[in-house]
């Protein structure tokens, strides 16, 4: 057994633990939503009748929510850029805006649900509404999760010790990755449910 130059190869992936962890988590999330989308396709193609989304759902509110979510993706990137430059105030501003937009999304969603409940429409009404409430509901839970993460980062930004911690920027980046993912899910959900 001869010792060679291979004796000390670089054994690290070059990606930080937190970032790799977030990416792996997103892989599992992709599988989760891919399963739901697949089930949606299977159920829809197997159904004898299926309503058109724009007849059954509130498309203007859905469009508004799409705009809100896309804007929030921009603001969280700005927040990350401000954190990268150690601009405390800028970070708080953009992260605060992101949170505001996420709450706005949930409020709009609430109005949408309320409109349906008022018409006597529930998840049990038909398979279409079952898919609609389940998929958007699960997406809403993911938005809530993002709000928890983002607001804790905003809270942390008020303490100097976190700005001195090299991990903080990584956490902001991780939160950004997650938020983009939630956004992308909506980009698929919106046409699948409302438009097609």
């Amino acid at each position, binding site marked *: 057994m001869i*010792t060679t130059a291979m004796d*000390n190869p670089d054994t*690290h992936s070059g990606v930080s633990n937190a970032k790799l962890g977030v990416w*792996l988590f997103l*892989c599992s999330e992709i*599988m989760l939503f891919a399963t*739901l989308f697949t*089930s949606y396709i299977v*159920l829809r193609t197997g159904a004898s009748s299926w309503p058109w989304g724009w007849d059954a759902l509130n498309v203007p509110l859905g469009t508004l929510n799409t705009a809100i979510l896309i804007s929030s993706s921009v603001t969280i990137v700005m927040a990350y850029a401000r954190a990268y430059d150690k601009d405390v105030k800028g970070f708080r501003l953009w992260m605060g805006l992101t949170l505001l937009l996420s709450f706005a999304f949930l409020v709009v969603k609430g109005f949408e649900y309320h409109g349906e409940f008022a018409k006597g429409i529930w998840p*049990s009404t038909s398979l279409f509404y079952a898919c609609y409430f389940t998929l958007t509901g699960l997406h809403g839970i993911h938005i809530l999760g993002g709000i928890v993460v983002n607001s804790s980062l905003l809270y942390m930004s008020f303490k100097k010790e976190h700005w001195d911690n090299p991990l903080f920027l990584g956490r902001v980046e991780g939160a950004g990755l997650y938020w983009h993912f939630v956004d992308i899910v909506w980009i698929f959900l919106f046409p699948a449910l409302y438009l097609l």
Partner: protein
Amino acid sequence: MSGDSNGHGAHEPSFWRKYVFSVDHKVIGLQYMMTAMSFLMVGFALMLLMRWQLAWPGAPIPFFGRLFPPDLAPNGVMSGEFYNSLGAMHGTIMVFLGVVPLAVGAYGNYLLPLQIGAPDMAFPRLNMASYWLFLGGGLLMLSSFMMPGGAAQSGWTSYPPLSIINPGQTVWLFSMVLIITSSLLGSINFLVTAMNMRAPGMSLWRLPVFCWAQMVTSVLLLLAFPPLEAAAFLQVMDRVFHTSFYMPKGLVVLGHVSTVSGGGQPLLWEHLFWFLAHPEVYVLVLPPMGIVAEIIANNTRKPLHGYKTIVVSMISIGVMSFLVWAHHMFISGMSPALSNFFLVTTMIISVPSVAILTCLIFSLKGGSIRFTTPMLYALAFLPLFGIGGLTGLPLGLTVTDIYLHDTYYVIGHFHFVVVTGSILALLGGTYHWFPKWFGRKMNDTLGKVHFWGSVVCMIGVFGPMFPMGLAGASRRLYDPTAQVHNLIVQPLNVVSTVFAYGLFLFQLPFIWNFFHSMFRGEKTEENPWHATTLEWACPSPPPHGNFDKTPRVHRGPYEYSAPGRKTDYWMQTDPA
């Protein structure tokens, strides 16, 4: 990275921090081990009750029968609903709360960081969260026996529409969500640890086979469990909010047409369930294979035959396992064209499994084998797992599966894989790594009694199931004698039951041996088996933070009997 904030410091943590809410991967590993072994015993106990009913249908259960509430077991005779609950919970507990947490949570947690030379997992607090989620899910699952409506009754596979009509299923679903979340966090942790935390010099091709097995397993858990989580979510919706994802239109239940809106597909659940549950089979099998590889290399005192073949086979099993799921569903009514596809992929996936087994058998060739207690388990694994694997082939072929499907043959097949395969290897691993965990050896005589007793009894329990299944005895029958064609094989049910009670008795020496040796066993030094891998290069038991200083790795994992050296083992950390 996040390890720095978790106090690998010098100060002595409190009792609670050290043993209960610990973030140390070794303590968490042992917590997983104790919990998973307890769940294995619980799952086994449920089966012992069922075996009584199967051997002597309608006879009151001796001693314990009167302890159950009269609605479960009137006059000590098990009711049909109770039998169904026991069956569903036996499967669920054994797979999700017993074998997987033992193979991955316990062995993986304890050994993976040690074998790659890391001070701990990448995310120690997440690791602790995984354990507590698992425990919470497990206890919730057990508590469902005491809840109104009782425990789930629809088998561990929970096929709708039965699972949506039967009581008890909602608790099952919620505990599964907790268990799945725990697995997901664990698998992320394992992968990041294996990718990022390896000691200098530990390239991927120097990882022990066990680490590779854990990595492939983690990928399977990471990608296969979310579909079940989604599927469980849809089932929760069906049960709680009366949607009809899995409910067809016009279903008649107990003479009444179901009122749900309908239009859903029961078959969808089967697809989603088996998309998880087939990779899950390899989650049950790969880590034990890794354990067997470690034990065999150590006790044959020669390098593993075909290390790279084994690793590549494991990876191809991992990839292929996502493409075989519907071979569980040949008679479900899905398209025959699909059946052909899954028949072919199933035949293909058996190739890497056979390659691994062949490499392990060839590793024995020309070795001076030490017949230590763990080695006995590893050696028994080879033929018995082989039987389990080969009896699976007729089930993977559509023609033979039409006859064998849902008979005792299927039960015999997968119990040979999981019990005489996985559990045997996991028990062997206990004897092998016990000196590392507690700094003491387990008693060899008791170990051999446990080994021979267990192996004979396991074959006695599951062997008779093959002829029973071939004779056409269906699985999941509450009273096998209710069907006339089963009467001829009913004596085999008695044989199986007697051996099951024997198997229970032969676990007693193991339990005593385990706890007695923990405190009174023969003391050992840090490398009692003269092994080569990194976990034997630190004290037994390893202190918090594992290694005094970061180890440097200089060679592959199995350098045994290298020519020109005084000792017959060359540790990965030895500079020369």
